[in-house]
């Protein structure tokens, strides 16, 4: 049990006492790239919100790196080493891309208690350089006074990823990282995520609609159906699973 990065046991969660997730259990091993799939309304988003701490579960346990985080708010889970992106990229639209990453780096320093007192108002030079490196690594320009709101859709997603990476999370939660992208951008995004996860040795949990992305990126797949995990298996195993074919691939076709 302790060898897994994330352990979810008997999780119930929902809104206004209507449970959406029913008795969900899941174990994610280090370095795994775990994809949650399921038809619309299966509870992917709810599960995601419960994992990240946006929604507190009504029952069950979530253990991250051996530490019980069930009752922790989102920001405390981030401090513990979890990172999260959103379906629609959330960035600070009025700030420049560099400021966005600088805020993330500063937040990281404050969380670690390494921030110290500082009279100068500008971010530390070391943080600024680090932000520039992260931005460059993700193919974003660090220069310019243009606010982040002027970025293209794909660049906003990459900026959000940059902010997340600034905190050096050991577990990445990506909510539909390719949502709203053209198919050419999609594969580029997948390669980027794949590279980053490998370079950093992080563990990845993501939800995804696009089956190409799911099978390209995933090393393990869990299928959610009516708030329950129907199966957790390798991509090949999921492909071969008759029940999954019936509820998922059989009905809605390729893009359920």
């Amino acid at each position, binding site marked *: 049990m302790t060898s897994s990065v994330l352990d979810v046991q008997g999780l119930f969660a929902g809104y206004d006492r209507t449970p959406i997730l029913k008795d969900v259990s899941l174990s994610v091993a280090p370095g795994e790239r775990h994809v949650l799939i399921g038809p619309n309304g299966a509870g992917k988003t709810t599960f995601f919100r419960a994992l990240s701490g946006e929604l507190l579960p009504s029952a069950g346990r979530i253990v991250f790196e051996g530490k019980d985080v069930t009752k922790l708010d989102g*920001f405390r889970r981030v401090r513990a080493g979890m990172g999260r992106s959103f379906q629609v990229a*959330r960035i*600070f639209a009025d700030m420049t891309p560099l*400021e966005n990453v600088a*805020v993330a780096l*500063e*937040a990281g320093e*404050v969380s670690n208690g390494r*921030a110290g007192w500082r009279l100068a108002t500008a*971010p530390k030079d070391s943080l600024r350089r680090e932000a520039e490196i992260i931005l460059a690594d993700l193919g974003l320009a660090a220069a310019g006074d243009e606010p982040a709101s002027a970025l293209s859709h794909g660049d906003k997603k990459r900026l959000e990823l940059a902010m997340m990476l600034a905190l050096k999370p050991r577990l990445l939660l990506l909510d539909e990282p390719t949502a709203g992208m053209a198919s050419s951008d999609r594969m580029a995004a997948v390669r980027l995520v794949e590279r980053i996860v490998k370079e950093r040795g992080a563990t990845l949990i993501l939800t995804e609609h696009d089956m190409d992305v799911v099978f390209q990126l995933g090393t393990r797949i869990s299928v959610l159906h009516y708030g329950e995990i129907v199966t957790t298996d390798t991509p090949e195993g999921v492909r071969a699973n008759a029940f999954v074919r019936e509820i998922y691939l059989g009905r809605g076709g390729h893009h359920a």
Partner: protein
Amino acid sequence: MSRSHATRFLVILVILTAAALLLPFAANRGLVFLAGVIAINVVLGLAFNLLFSTAGLLSFGQATFSASGAYAAALLLLRAPEVPFLAVLVIAAATGAAIAFAIGFVALRRTEGVYFAVLTLAFAELVHVIIAKTSFFGRNDGLTGIQRPRIGPLDLAQGNAYYVFVILVTALLIAVLWWVTHSRLGRSFRAVRLDPMRAAFLGIDVRRRQLEAFAISGACAATAGALMGPLTSIVSPDLAHWGESTKPILFTLLGGAGHFWGPLVGAIVFSAVEYGTRSLAGASDLITGGLLLAVVLAIPGGLLGLATLGVRRLQARPAAPSEAALPLAPAASKGETL
């Protein structure tokens, strides 16, 4: 780039302070007194705008903080004259911060714009009732006979000494507020305002940041309020009335919420309008209300927003995302209903 930013701020602050300090050579006693009141009001406006435009919190209860500072200082000056005045100001600041913290602790359970505003208003009225009904605070009559204090060998009752002191302290408070707004702390306040959810998932403790913003604003407003008693020689429950809470809002919106100096411009322009129409007794509500309504409906960027826009037009540059659009941002950003 940001070093020049700081330099520019300091140059403006020094010019403004010098102008205020030279005023007694050019104006009569009445105008100098008014300038002292305006200086205090500028700080109240800037303290409000730290909450509004930087942290994204609409406080309708700022009078609580300025009044708590005013009463703390007045009580100490009257009952414990042995306490040095600079210590009195520090105690007043601490009182304001503590009350802001207590109110924020409850009110920040509902941070969505309107709810928070009304909760701060309700608590401000609670404080108003307590001040106006407690004999310790002099009930409705307030506390009178507040003398201008000494600071070591300096007697602030002499000539314009107290006015000079007020200008120097307010300049210091303005510098503190500028620093907070532009520092790492201010950046995290802005992050919380722009998208509380994103901020939380960067590990920022959103509620704590909001409480800090509230306490800093409260401390600055209370220090400015503490200067009021010795200036006017009286503090009364009117200082805690909700009408007082709306003045900083008016200054900020009139001058331009998206600019650091907006509340300063607003406070000066409003005082000029009020001074110019002082003979129209009873019409002050009508003027204040009409002005505020006109600003919100016609120039939501305030006077500085309008000026910036005008300068941009003259320079005929391609329209950059204007700073004038900023004031609409506080809660219009995604985070509002989260």
